[in-house]
């Protein structure tokens, strides 16, 4: 047994690819069978990751989730900031300023409002529940944008891992809520034209949630909403650990 664990730790990154693949395979299955595709597999797999980290933490009393279990140390690499930031930057490919120009100033306004309002409401909730330092408040506010902006901001500002975990969880809750809620609320907010989908994507961000929610509303709207939502993550990663963090530092 001993030599197998040594082997797995030595080849940690490859083993992490394998285990993540298995997690995602089962999550896709849960998504299709238990939720009839209503909750996207990606949101379930991220949630599964958090659940696994929770039980690993109970077992090992460590701080690094399943990376503390012998043999699973490669998760620290695969889920570390280097790969994460590299993959996030790559998602900007295909985004085109020409298309955002089509929505005109309203598209841009919805993007800025979406980031700022999500951030502020996240900060207010965190403050009301007893969090007082600027770094943690900013990280949770960023998590209220998306489950990506939260950890990117938290790492950049040096927030603690449990605060980063909260910011991811908040982003996942948001993604699931947008996925399920979009088709239900669409008739009431006039979500039926490409332009309204662009505004919606800009306000909500959370690309996976917006895309899945719009698909359930009207598949024709997906590319429009996803387009502005892509900019949302970029704008969030740009503003949260900078301008919005400075505001927090000035206030707290």
């Amino acid at each position: 047994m001993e030599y197998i664990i040594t082997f797995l730790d030595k080849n940690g990154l490859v083993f992490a690819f394998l285990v993540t693949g298995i997690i995602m395979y089962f999550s896709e299955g849960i998504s299709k069978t238990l939720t009839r595709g209503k909750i996207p597999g990606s949101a379930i797999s991220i949630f599964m990751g958090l659940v696994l980290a929770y039980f690993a933490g109970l077992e090992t009393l460590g701080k690094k989730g399943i990376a503390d279990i012998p043999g699973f140390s490669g998760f620290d690499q695969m889920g570390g900031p280097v790969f994460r930031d590299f993959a996030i930057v790559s998602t900007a490919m295909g985004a085109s300023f020409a298309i955002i120009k089509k929505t005109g100033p309203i598209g841009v306004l919805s993007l800025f409002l979406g980031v700022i309002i999500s951030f502020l409401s996240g900060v207010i909730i965190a403050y009301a529940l007893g969090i007082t330092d600027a770094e943690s408040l900013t990280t949770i506010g960023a998590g209220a944008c998306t489950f990506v902006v939260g950890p990117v901001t938290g790492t950049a500002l040096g927030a603690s891992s449990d605060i980063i975990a909260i910011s991811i969880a908040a982003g996942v809750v948001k993604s699931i809520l947008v996925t399920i809620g979009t088709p239900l609320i669409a008739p009431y907010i006039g979500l039926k034209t490409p332009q309204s989908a662009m505004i919606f994507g800009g306000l909500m961000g959370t690309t996976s949630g917006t895309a899945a929610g719009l698909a359930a509303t009207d598949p024709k709207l997906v590319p429009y909403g996803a387009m502005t939502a892509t900019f949302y993550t970029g704008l969030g990663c740009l503003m949260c650990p900078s301008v919005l963090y400075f505001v927090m530092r000035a206030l707290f």
Partner: protein
Amino acid sequence: MLLRGVALLAACFVAGQILGETLGRLLGIQANVGGVGFAMLFLILSQNELEKRGLFHLEMGEGITFWSKMYIPIIVAMSSVQNVRVAFSNGLLALLAGIIPVIACLALMPLLSKLAPKE
């Protein structure tokens, strides 16, 4: 060609992150100020520029697309190495910080739709 795409992505990453770190130093804080955001901006700008000149090869795009498809798996791995045990005591915060912003933003939707020019 494939690696040229990856290299372009890496160049944007390095430039953006160093800019973020430098900004942090200049502002006197121990933080990377918007590095990932700058890197994304660089990637969009350089891709648009290369496409305009007809220099953006399809295969270059594939080198970048691979990483954007790895994005969710990497996020899954990232969430599995967080200190969730300690965060769990603050589960209510995560729940509210996920729900309230959606409601706040939804409330703005009808107003923004009205402001939008008619198609």
